[in-house]
């Protein structure tokens, strides 16, 4: 790898969307904060009640808008606040992994991880690692699209 290329990669600041479930992973992210574990300012957390709410189209939407990486976090299997919600997430996301390369998106831009409410350190580490991975892959090839605040009048 040439020096110029390496420099370019480290300059790239990825934009990552992270879905966190209210009960475990969002709490784990909070604990990272309370414990002051530092991590890159690359992620924007979108809170859902359960990771089971995340439907595949959300991930595709994110990539369509030029977001560089998407992370879904939920309770560990067996710990789900809604009993089995995360099991459905797991099944759904298996398909996403196989779908992404077919539409020209590196599947490593997407990740599903389980983070408990006591795993603040693991959360920070995950963000560090994932950010680095995205940096290595490089910016999304899709041009960033700016959003528009609209009303759902239905």
């Amino acid at each position, binding site marked *: 790898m040439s020096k110029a290329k390496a420099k370019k990669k480290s300059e790239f*600041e990825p*934009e990552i*969307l992270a879905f966190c479930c*209210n009960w*475990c992973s*969002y*709490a784990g*992210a*909070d*604990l*990272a*904060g309370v*414990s*002051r574990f*530092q*991590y890159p*300012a690359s992620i*924007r*957390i*979108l*809170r*859902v*009640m*359960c990771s*089971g*709410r995340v*439907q595949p*189209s*959300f991930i595709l*939407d*994110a990539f369509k*808008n*030029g*977001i560089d990486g998407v992370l879904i976090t939920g*309770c*560990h299997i*067996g*710990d789900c*606040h*809604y*009993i*089995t*919600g995360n099991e*459905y997430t797991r099944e759904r996301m298996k398909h996403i992994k196989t779908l992404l390369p077919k539409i020209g998106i590196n599947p490593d831009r997407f990740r599903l991880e389980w983070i*408990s*409410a*006591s*795993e*603040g*350190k693991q959360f920070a580490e995950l963000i560090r690692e994932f950010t680095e991975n995205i940096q290595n892959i490089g910016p999304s090839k899709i041009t*960033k*699209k*700016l*959003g*528009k*605040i*609209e*009303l*759902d*009048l239905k």
Partner: protein
Amino acid sequence: MSDFHSSVLVIGGGIAGIQTSLDLTELGFKVYLVEKKPTIGGTMAQLDKTFPTLDCSLCILAPKMVEVYRNPNIELLTYSYVKNIKGSAGNYSIKVIRKPRYVQEDLCKGCGDCATICPVKGIPSEFDAHLSSHGAAHISFPSSVPPVYLIDENKCLYLNHGICQLCKSNCKADAIDFSQKPKEVKIKVGAIVIATGYEQEYPEFYSQLSGQNPNVLSSMQYERLLSANGPTGGELLRFDDKKHPHKIGFLQCVGSRDFHHPDCKKYCSSICCMSSAKQAIVTKEHSPDTECYIFNTEIRAKGKNFYEFIVKSKEEYGVKYVNGSVASVKEDNSSGKLRLAYENIDKGVVENDEFDMLVLASALFPNKSYYKLLDCLDVDYNEFGYISEKGLAQCEDGFIFFTGYSSKPKDIPVAVAEGSACASKISEKLHEVRFENIKEVTFPPEIPVLAEDEPRVGVLVCQCGINIGGVVNTTEVVDYIASLPYVVHAEENMYSCSSDSQERIKEMIKEYNLNRFIVASCTPRTHEPLFRNTIREVGLNPFLFELVNIRDQDSWVHQSEPEKATQKAKDLIRMYLAKVVNLRPLEKIKVEVEKASLVIGGGIAGIISATSLANQGFEVYLVEKNPNLGGNALEFVDLFDIPMHENDILKSINDLKTRSNVHILTNSKIIDINGFVGNYKITVENIENPSEMEEFKVGTIIVSTGGSQSKTERWGNVLGKHPDRVFTQNQLEAINDTELPGFKDATIILCVDQRKNEINLGDGIKTYCSNICCKVALKNIEKLLKINPEAHIHVLYRELQYSDLNAERLWRDLRKYVSFERYGSINDIDIKDNGERFHIQYNNIGANCDIEYDSDILVLATPEVPGEKTKELAKMLKVPTTKDGFFLEAHVKLRPIDFATEGIFLCGGAHWPKWIDETITQAYGAAGRAAMMMVKGEVETEGITSYVNEEKCIGCGVCETVCPYQAIEILENSKKVGLYEIVEKKAHVINAVCKGCGACAAECPVGAINQNHFTKFQIKKQIELLTGIDTQRCEVD
């Protein structure tokens, strides 16, 4: 009306106290929760994981702690103790002393600025079991409830030497108050619950086991070491050389189960075997190469699927179990290792081995304040140091109840069920004064906000002292946000959560005529309810609000990158703005609840549940398939360690029959259950006369269908010939003494066809332990000895499950007269017909040789199994069962007697084979949980539920399958299309049952189901706004 007080004092804020308090408020009583530590949460908050599901302990406990904190009917008195109790049943005057925190609870924002600047260091942390330290200004742990700091008065420089006060000058909230003095609080209550929990000695106490060595830890210390929020952040390290331990020894029964040593406890602490197995598994998950040895007297795994957990630790994780105790521990200074000399009972030798770390599963015992309370109540305790049975009965007469470890050793689910049971018993005593002290908050009428109304958003950006403001440029954020569409007004302030800020929010809403609000501050997990409440107070629907986290997930994690943190704050608020403008007012719909309950199964569990509900004033339908009530319990000769005997059961049955609000339907079978919480329609058929049907409506259902003992095919050729001399344990209990054939030798074989493991294999062997057989054997031994005191009784056992106080005592007494003989596998026992007698041959562990003898009668402990109709009933109720066919509760740790389906509860042998005391506890608990749903005559639904767009719905039923709460039903409507009549299927959400997880919305193939407050449109808009905003286009629009 009675003149009892409608308030209850709960002493102890661990999981038992928390559960009791929450249940009591639901039942209509005000609670004073007194906790001596600065935070509630107790031991459970310190745990890393819980057995047997390896749930993250804090994940499941923290929401309950917050619930207590937010409950307007619980007055939380932390860092306080009860000084005295005066009065009598229904009327107590209590003096509580509140110790000074030197931090004003109502002003402290929990930011930690006082702790950061405090120059005092090195005070051992009680929460981390002395494995870490903190300053004089500190908080127990990050998720403490209340989230308030305190100052250690023994270590503070100002309080002891008159210098410093750095914290005072650093506190932007001006919360430090050095003038605080102990404060006496007087309260009046009608009943008292004692839930003071347990303690454990630090390892230094056990000097003979080198407890002073830094690598010898107590089990609680090890728990902290494993915990992700522990002293090493979850990294497994030795404390002196900071290296990973490669070989860890877990020493069981340290300082317990010892009748000889005065410093030791006589009883079994009852949870250590399981907790050590859990710790060994978690260790293996951290680093699979670490060797784990568990040195045990015998493994006691008494609970639902606990035995399988032990087997899993051996077979899946390679945890090694050594049967035998450790004689000595020597430190090897050169290698830093710990050298153990121990007895290996299975091999019959003494062995030596070296370890990097030792974990002492040492005795657990009630803490000192417990004895002060017992003195205060003037009741005595037994030889084990727990309240005596007489004391317990005396207290119950005085409306004083014990729960958790304070009545006897127990694990979390039993404590939780007991908490609910205490609440139910109190509800029986005080039901006439229910709701007298309950605060019902009233709000002004809601301002209608329609979909077509232009959104007018207000934004408040919090600086949280310097916690946010020190990193994020809040002024810049406010300027940016104010420029965005639909934002009418934005401003910043020092502390958004303070009471003056709540007034400011209300002013803003009125001044700018706002119909949506955003606060950008800390976490919605703790603060969303506060702000929702505030906007509701000025008539705005509480769901027209979003809290954006720019502290815990921004300023605190990007402390050295202020510019990026500022940008992130802008991005996040922008994303949430896109959601907020699309929020709709949501309503928590009230569903009427029939004040009647169906109890299925008229055994002891059903009788107790029905009685408790009837005592609380509810209508009860008790359905039993047999001609008589009483179930298995009536067959028992004597119930040796519970305060209830055969006559008591008969008395309860007769009492129940006289109640006008109890309908007993014996000889009856349920043929249909229709509806949901609050409104079930039940159809019952008379078994003898099927045309005789009864229909009635109930609000809740309690399942108490019990279980029975199975038969065995084993040794069939021999045993089949002499049915008069072979009994199951239950049969022997039930038989009259005179009907038993004469005998000189009798044999009780335990673990027949159960507890499958690596050596005890074969078809038909159940994987689980039936829990009760070892104790039933004690009663049967007593029975046999009473009939023939000269008889020689053999008990062939594998591991004795005598963790209950009295069982341990009785066993120690009986083993003088009876030979307890240990075997390994049921397949090693050979029984031949010797004409008059049975010839028994088996391999004895310990003696390590074959033993042969003749026996006249045989008593077999075959597996306890669920009632035969369990599957059928489960289908009717739409509730799940385990692989062994027992009913499966909502959560094995914290919801042991609830089903996931709202309004249905579980108790007794239908849940799992259990001893009668625990059955009774669960039965009271289930009654209490059911009563909670019925007291108000209505239940409130979740505001955030799913809804169906019927036009899009194709009736495929995927949503029905994924819903874990049975909140979706597929309705069939007949429709006429031209000449044809077709049946159209449409999904329908039962609002009363929906918990709002949104799984159905994600799974629907045609996008017909959506989740309120997390709609597809809202989330998509949030995603779109992440990358930035196209303001130009907005202006054009």
